Every structure is written in structure tokens, then in C-alpha cells.
């Protein structure tokens, strides 16, 4: 007699379902779309580009003058300004491959953050579909895209490292955890808060263990190096100065908070349909980060499009994974569809917002600006507005127009000025100074068309002022 046996189907997913070609196509889709948007914005002079200009100059200056190179953007040495020691590795390839290399490096790094998310979801035993959705939640997140769409920032490159750090934490692997923490410090002083939050996460998850202690020691050492060796003003970024809170902007701050957390809360609601309640303790970490950001006295730091906000995303992703792990439920197809729709809608709203953003008005003189740059010499110092700076390429010879001081302009320096356009960061008195220069005999007009001017200072200008 044959005996029939019912074997309970075991839902075990293969690695291929998580890390197959599908995963790579999503990573490269993000890369292709974001790089195209970056290049298109760059070619239309829409990019704000102040930080991109700074990094371009920093990399070129390192190649030319070594690590003691100075910047015209901020006083002091470049490393003293931001402490991003890993940036030095980019210097030579960037000098060879140009601005596009920086765009691709940034977008590729962000896109590769998708892999540790999938890995974390797999460790939490979430099905591949949920893992993919969490990955898309990261890639399409406004805080992630805003961080790398306009500019280049080393701090954005820290997001995937944070995620890998979380993976090694989940796997209790001390050496990789310490390695990722060290690499994280290489992204500059702006990631210090994220590094502290990562170590706090380790404390919450593992308690006092060798892994946590190593993390605490490493972060402590890094803060000491920043404070005493590089003398970077780290605390002003991490904690808002007293008595200068932007309370009058409370509505914007609230909207920012809601904007940042909304997609994660939305994901959470999907799980809460079980009528079981699980409040992950890990929500605490992003909320601390968010509070510090939005209460900061620095307007740039409170902006929802500030690159430092990107680092909050890994800490927002983790509580969602933790909730899913605890409630262990699956989404229906309809819920999946709604979730994707919400994410795409979020991206659409963000795009519209970017388009209408007054801060990044598109100049009308694109063609003339291109012509004007054809008349700019590669050997002299060039002053330019923020949106034009990235077009000067990887060069040490650039100075933001906002930093122009008539008495210190080097002889032979050139000024590119689009009179029809304001980059919103160059103060009015600088424009007044340039107008005065224009009416003096110290400048020569090299190019003039449709309101775009290229001026060159005669070599005796500096001696006149010096005298």
C-alpha cells in the first residue's frame, strides 16, 4: 500500500531571486536616468553647481599642488574644510575623465546602495518582491535623488556605506563593520552625525559587545582628528547654535519632516493592516537626525533638498525592514501597485517642485553662455556665477563670483557674467562692484552678446589698487 505524504510547502527563496539580473537592471536604470538628468541639467546651465565647482577645484588643485592645496571657495586648506580624505582618491581619475566622471561616481555609489538593502531584507527573511520594493523606496526617495541630482557631494557617497555598515551589523561581522565605519569617515565631517547614529544602532541591536566598542572608539578618534588635527567646525553642523533656531519657519520645517518621513510611514501602514501594533525602537535614530537637521540655524541644512538629508534614508529604511520582519506579512498585488504608484507620484511631485524652484531658475542665455565660454582662457583665473562654474571643468583656476573682492582680483583674471540671470547666492554688492569695474579702464570686454559678458582685468589693475 502506498502512503501519501503531504509535504508542507516551504517558502525558501533562492539568491537568484534577490540578486539576479533584475536587481542589476534596476541599479543601472537608476544610474542611466539620474546621469541623463544630471547631464541634461548641466548642459542647460540649470545646475546650481556651487559644491560641484568646489569639488572640481579641489580635485584639480590636489593634482597640481598636492594635499596642502588651498581653495578659493572657503578659507584654509581643502581637507581642513570638509575632512573628506577619501576624496583624494578621485583626484587623478577626475582630472582625466572630467565632470562626467563625478556625476557617474556619485550616481553609481547611490545606486549601489540598493544591494545592501536587498541583503538586509533577505536577512530579515522578507520575500524578494518586498525587498525590491524597499530598494525602490530608497532609490526613488526625494532625499536621495535631491542629494545627487544637481551637484556633487562626498557626503552622498556615504549612504551606501551606511547601508553596508548596517548589513555587517546584522551579520555581527566586526571587521567589515569597522572597515565601513573607517570608509564612512572618509566622506567628510558632514557624515559624523550619521556615524554616531550607526554606532548607536549597534548599541541598540547588540548591546555592549566588542563590535560596538570598536565602533565607539573609531568614531571618537575621528571626532578628535576633525576637532584637533583638521580643525573642522564639526559641532556647528551637528548641533544648532543656541538661540538661533528658525522657529518662524516652523511650517516649512513641519512640511520638510512630513516630506522626509511620508514614504516610510506609508510603507509602515501596509504592515499595520494586520491590526497588530509594533513600534520599532529604531525610528528613534532617524527622528534624532531629522530633528537636528530641521532645527539647525543653517538654512541650507533645513532645506529638504540638502545633501546631508540623504544620510537619514538608511536610518528610515531600517525601521521599515524591522517592522516587516516582526509582523511578517506579505503585501497583496493591489497594495504593491498602490505603493509603486505612490512612489512614482512622489517622484513626479518632486520633479515639478524642482522645475518651479525659484532657486534654480533656468537661464535663457544657454547658447550665448556656451559661446562666451569659448572665449575664456584656460590659463587665467575665472570668476563665474554658480551655474556656470561646473562648465569650467576640472580646473583649479576658478572662483565663485560671490567671492569677488575688487582689491584682490588677480591680474589677467576673467569674469563671466550673465546680466540677465541671478544665481541667488551672489550678493548685490558684488554685481555693483562688477558694474564699477566695467565702467573703469581696468577691464577689457572680450565678449558681449545678449547680456552675457566676458571681461578681462588688465594686468596693471592689481598694481593700481595695491598702490
Amino acid at each position: 500500500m502506498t502512503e501519501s505524504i503531504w509535504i508542507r510547502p516551504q517558502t525558501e527563496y533562492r539568491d537568484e531571486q534577490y540578486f539576479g539580473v533584475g536587481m542589476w537592471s534596476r541599479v543601472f536604470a537608476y544610474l542611466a536616468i539620474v546621469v541623463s538628468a544630471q547631464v541634461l541639467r548641466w548642459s542647460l546651465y540649470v545646475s546650481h553647481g556651487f559644491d560641484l565647482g568646489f569639488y572640481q577645484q579641489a580635485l584639480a588643485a590636489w593634482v597640481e599642488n598636492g594635499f596642502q592645496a588651498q581653495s578659493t571657495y572657503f578659507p584654509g586648506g581643502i581637507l581642513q574644510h570638509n575632512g573628506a580624505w577619501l576624496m583624494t582618491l578621485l583626484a587623478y581619475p577626475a582630472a582625466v575623465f572630467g565632470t562626467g566622471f563625478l556625476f557617474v561616481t556619485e550616481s553609481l555609489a547611490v545606486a549601489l546602495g540598493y544591494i545592501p538593502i536587498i541583503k538586509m531584507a533577505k536577512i530579515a527573511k522578507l520575500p524578494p518582491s518586498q525587498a525590491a520594493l524597499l530598494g525602490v523606496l530608497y532609490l526613488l526617495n526625494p532625499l536621495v535623488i535631491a542629494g545627487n541630482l544637481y551637484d556633487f557631494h562626498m557626503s552622498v557617497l556615504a549612504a551606501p556605506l551606511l547601508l553596508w555598515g548596517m548589513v555587517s551589523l546584522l551579520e555581527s561581522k566586526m571587521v567589515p563593520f569597522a572597515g565601513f565605519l573607517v570608509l564612512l569617515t572618509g566622506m567628510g565631517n558632514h557624515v559624523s552625525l550619521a556615524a554616531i547614529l550607526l554606532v548607536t544602532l549597534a548599541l541598540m541591536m547588540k548591546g555592549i559587545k566588542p563590535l560596538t566598542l570598536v565602533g565607539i572608539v573609531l568614531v571618537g578618534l575621528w571626532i578628535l582628528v576633525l576637532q584637533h588635527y583638521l580643525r573642522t567646525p564639526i559641532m556647528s553642523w551637528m548641533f544648532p547654535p543656541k538661540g538661533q533656531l528658525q522657529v518662524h519657519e516652523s511650517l516649512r520645517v513641519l512640511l520638510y519632516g512630513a516630506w522626509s518621513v511620508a514614504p516610510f510611514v506609508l510603507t509602515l501602514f501596509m504592515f499595520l493592516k494586520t491590526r497588530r501594533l509594533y513600534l520599532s525602537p529604531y525610528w528613534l535614530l532617524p527622528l534624532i537626525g531629522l530633528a537636528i537637521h530641521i532645527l539647525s540655524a543653517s538654512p541650507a541644512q533645513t532645506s529638504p533638498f540638502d545633501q546631508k538629508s540623504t544620510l537619514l534614508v538608511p536610518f528610515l529604511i531600517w525601521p521599515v525592514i524591522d517592522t516587516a520582519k516582526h509582523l511578517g506579512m506579505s503585501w497583496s498585488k493591489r497594495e504593491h501597485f498602490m505603493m509603486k504608484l505612490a512612489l512614482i507620484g512622489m517622484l513626479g511631485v518632486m520633479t515639478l517642485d524642482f522645475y518651479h524652484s525659484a532657486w534654480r531658475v533656468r537661464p535663457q542665455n544657454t547658447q550665448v553662455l556656451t559661446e562666451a565660454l569659448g572665449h575664456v582662457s584656460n590659463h587665467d583665473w575665472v570668476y563665474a556665477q554658480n551655474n556656470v562654474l561646473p562648465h569650467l571643468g576640472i580646473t583649479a583656476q576658478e572662483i565663485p563670483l560671490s567671492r569677488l573682492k575688487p582689491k584682490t582680483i588677480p591680474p589677467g583674471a576673467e569674469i563671466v557674467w550673465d546680466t540677465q540671470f541671478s544665481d541667488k547666492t551672489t550678493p548685490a554688492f558684488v554685481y555693483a562692484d562688477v558694474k564699477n569695474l566695467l565702467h573703469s579702464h581696468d577691464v577689457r570686454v572680450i565678449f558681449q552678446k545678449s547680456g552675457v559678458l566676458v571681461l578681462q582685468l588688465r594686468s596693471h589693475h592689481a598694481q593700481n589698487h595695491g598702490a
Partner: protein
Amino acid sequence: MSKSIRLDEPSPESGPVKIRVRWMERWHKSFHQLGIWAELTRNLAVRDVETRYKHSMLGLYWAIINPLVTAAIFGFVFGVIFHASSKPIPYVVFMLTGITFWNFFANGVMSAVGSISGNAALLAKIYFPRIVLPTASVLARFIDFMFSLLVLIVFIFIYHTPIYWSSLWIPVILVLQVFFTLGIGYLVAALNVLYRDVNQLVGLVLLVWMYFSPVMYPVTHLKPSLRSILLMNPMGSLLQMERDVIFTGHLQYPLFAWVALTWTVFVFFAGISLFRRIEPLFAEVM
């Protein structure tokens, strides 16, 4: 009672060394397998070219005649009737360069479309990875392209057009173009098995695509905004790069090379991904 043994359970003596050996074996096996499929792909590509020209009177000359006639027609219409200019490069050479590189892409995609649906008998008899078929089709068109390239070189010399040493970068750009063509080829080949309209649609799409790519006109004189949009198209960017390295000695729009690179990688992976997803349905549909 004896304890049940699971075959996938590691044996007590298995350690890191054993695991490493197993990994090495797997890699070795994979490379060996890849070598076999690569040989099959090459044989299929050569067979494709042979059967295409074997029984025709002009044989391989067709690979040369096609781009020549196309360039002559477009050259006459745009160069003589519409006085299109591509200074300092003679328009015929400019046009022939565009047509040669574009034709490789267009012909590659067109022959990949029917590569699965047209080989139903072969698929029913032997097992091999189905992706070999569109790959072989694209490679076959690459062989045709090499003959067209000879024609282009002859024309460059006839018109005394100066070329630069940077032309040596052409193989690198061609690698990108091959991968981009393969990606699109996988995509359309798989979709054509499910929907036979794809075959017709691809022809139309390629026609529109050609006019949106700088095959017959230079982008240098266009408005920057329009030029940027045209170069966002990966094929447009690749064609521009190919012309630039041959005739100007440097990339005029280097930033768009990154756009082409990222889209190529994405299209290639997306093509494989979609192909693998649809592959199990081939047997049911065909």
C-alpha cells in the same frame, strides 16, 4: 532509528578549503560552459552570414552595395537638393560614416527580432541557452559591418578627408554599440515571440529613431537645448562620438559619452533580464 540525511547538508569534514574547492569547480565549470556557448554563437553567426550570401549572385558584395546605395540616395537628397552642409568634412563622407554605424545597429536589431521565432525547429530539437540566437544574429551583422567599414575607409581616402590618431578609440566605442545593440536585440527578440507585431513595430521605431539621431545632419550647429536632447539618445551620442574621434580628434561633447555608457549598461542588463523572464514561455507560445 537512523537519522535522515539531507543531501544539501554539509558533511562533517567539509571546511573552508572544501568550500573554496567547490567554488573553484563551479567557476571552472561556468567558464567551460561559457566557452561552449561562445563557440556555438560564433558558428551560428558565421552560418547566418554564409546562408545570407551563399546563393546570391553578388554574394558578399551586398554587404558593400547596401550602405553605398543608401548613402548615395541620402547624399543626393540632403546634399544636392537640400544643400546640407557638414563642413569641414565632405558631406558624402559625413553621411557615409553615419549610415555605416547606424546600419550596424539597425540591421542588428532587425535580425535579432526574428531570431527566436524564426528558429522554432532548432529550438524544438536541441537544448541550448536561447539567448545565443539573438547574440549570433547581432554578431552576424557585425561581420557585415566590417565590410561596410572598408567602404568607408576607401571613401575617406578618395575625398582626402583628414583623420586623427584618436580613431584608434573606435573599437572601444564599438564595444559599447555592440552591447547596446545586443540589449535592444534581446528585448525585441523575446517580445516578438509573445507579440508578432513587434517585428513590424521595430522597423517603424528604427525609422523614427534614425531621424532623431545625427545620422544625416551634424548637431554642432543646432541650438544647445535641442542638441542636448538629441545627444541624450544613446545612439545619437555614440554616432557623435564615432565621428568625433575620426574627424575632430577629440570628443566635442564628452559629458554625453557618460550618458551613452550608462544607458548601454542599463539596456544590456534590462535586455537580459526581460529575455530571461520571457524565456520559459517560449515553449508554450511557439
